[in-house]
């Protein structure tokens, strides 16, 4: 696309994208470290994740301020307007992803060293998958590629399916050994966090579609998370 007649307008929009790239990078890192902290039960790393969440929050505020100021100054239209609205929405999703990573990290302290290793593998897999999805959607955003965003949107199914299987697996452990109920519940919440991160990632994918095409992505996304229908 050609540049604006006002050079400073391009700079305003460029600055928003840069902020979001930083936010996205941080969110990815937080997610990776939170998963790592929980699966290795590394309390120190978990504390760092908890402390660093503030950085993402601060960036979200910065994105909002920049977006509001740009709207006030430029009265954006068409794609420029979508660019700004989408930046606000994506920033909000990334901030929520940061919160979910922080919440996952917090659970590290509640899960004891004695926890059988096999219980962690499913969650670690979910964490990796959520990271891959997040990275793919952020790449799609940076490239303005709605096709890649759509692929991420569809792939969320896998994360949902994995969550359902972990849910069942943890239920089985809890039934086998009631002493594990407390810890398994924490892991279940951790897994739920990953599933929610997947949902925020698909929100971002939907916003990329809107940004590029100017229309809302319609149609039911295939859902494989059936846990809310599972009788316990």
């Amino acid at each position: 696309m050609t540049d604006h007649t006002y050079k400073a307008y391009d700079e305003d929009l460029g600055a928003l994208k840069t902020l979001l790239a930083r936010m996205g990078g941080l969110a990815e890192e937080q997610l990776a470290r939170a998963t790592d902290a929980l699966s290795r039960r590394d309390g120190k790393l978990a504390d760092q994740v908890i402390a660093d969440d503030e950085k993402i929050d601060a960036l979200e505020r910065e994105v909002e301020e920049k977006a509001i100021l740009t709207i006030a100054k430029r009265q954006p239209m068409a794609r420029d307007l979508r660019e700004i609205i989408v930046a606000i929405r994506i920033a909000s999703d990334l901030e929520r992803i940061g919160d979910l990573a922080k919440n996952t990290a917090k659970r590290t302290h509640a899960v004891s060293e004695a926890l059988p290793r096999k219980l962690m593998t499913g969650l670690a897999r979910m964490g990796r998958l959520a990271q891959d999805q997040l990275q793919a959607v952020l790449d799609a955003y940076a490239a303005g590629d709605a096709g890649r965003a759509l692929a991420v949107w569809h792939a969320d199914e896998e994360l949902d399916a994995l969550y359902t299987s972990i849910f069942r697996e943890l239920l089985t452990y809890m039934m086998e050994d009631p002493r594990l109920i407390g810890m398994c519940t924490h892991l279940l919440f951790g897994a739920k966090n990953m599933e929610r991160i997947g949902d925020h990632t698909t929100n971002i994918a939907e916003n990329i579609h809107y940004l590029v095409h100017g229309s809302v992505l319609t149609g039911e996304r295939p859902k494989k998370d059936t846990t809310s229908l599972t009788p316990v």
Partner: protein
Amino acid sequence: MNQISSVQPAPAPVRILAERPEKMAARGVNIHYGDKHAIKDLSITIPDRAVSSFIGPSGCGKSTFLRALNRMNDTIPSCRMTGDITLDGRNINGRDVDPVQLRSHVGMVFQKPNPFPKSIFENVAYGPRIHGLTASTTDLEERVVESLKKAGLFEEVKDRLHQPGTGLSGGQQQRLCIARAIAVNPEVILMDEPCSALDPIATAKIEELIDELRQNYCIVIVTHSMQQAARVSQLTAFFHLGTLVEFGDTDKIFTAPRDPRTQDYITGRFG
């Protein structure tokens, strides 16, 4: 009057036109000023009881086309037009159509407020009087008051109706011109950048007025302010180099236009 010979289907926003009937339409219109081809094969359907705005860079032909809608171009000797423009399905360029009569149906408000050097009352009374629209002096007075009320000006001028119209502020003068246009009971009101000489408050009042008037009139407005087009109109047409690039629901044009040229223009990317 001649019925139009349909050349090609005119582009029309389906949703708005489904709700409102066609008021004016152009089919295959070409306008030349001497050697300059100002409007190129333009077709459009303008609905009744809605505001349609024409936007585009200077020299794109939007004002030329607006003036063709009430035959204001007739007075320019080098100007030639082909194609059909209709009002309620009747060709406005037919030999039996009197342009003065036409302009009482299709009124116009210009960029700079241009009240006659007469009193406020006379400015508004002029049209009904020359068109013989009122039976008595009382009738005429009623019509003047009613038109001033519709133009949102009456309260501000009721105590000085017989003072010169040129003594009003710019915004008031423009509303006086709108009252003058309304006084002859037009069906269509054309506005050529009606707010470009006004401050933001006067502009807001005119825009508010346009929004009220659209309940009863077909309004077409040429504007350089994209925000104004977005605020006041239900339909927006984008003109570029004499062609109609895109015509559609205003909501759509300003959020997700179809044509990249529209996109470039409204986002301020035209070199």
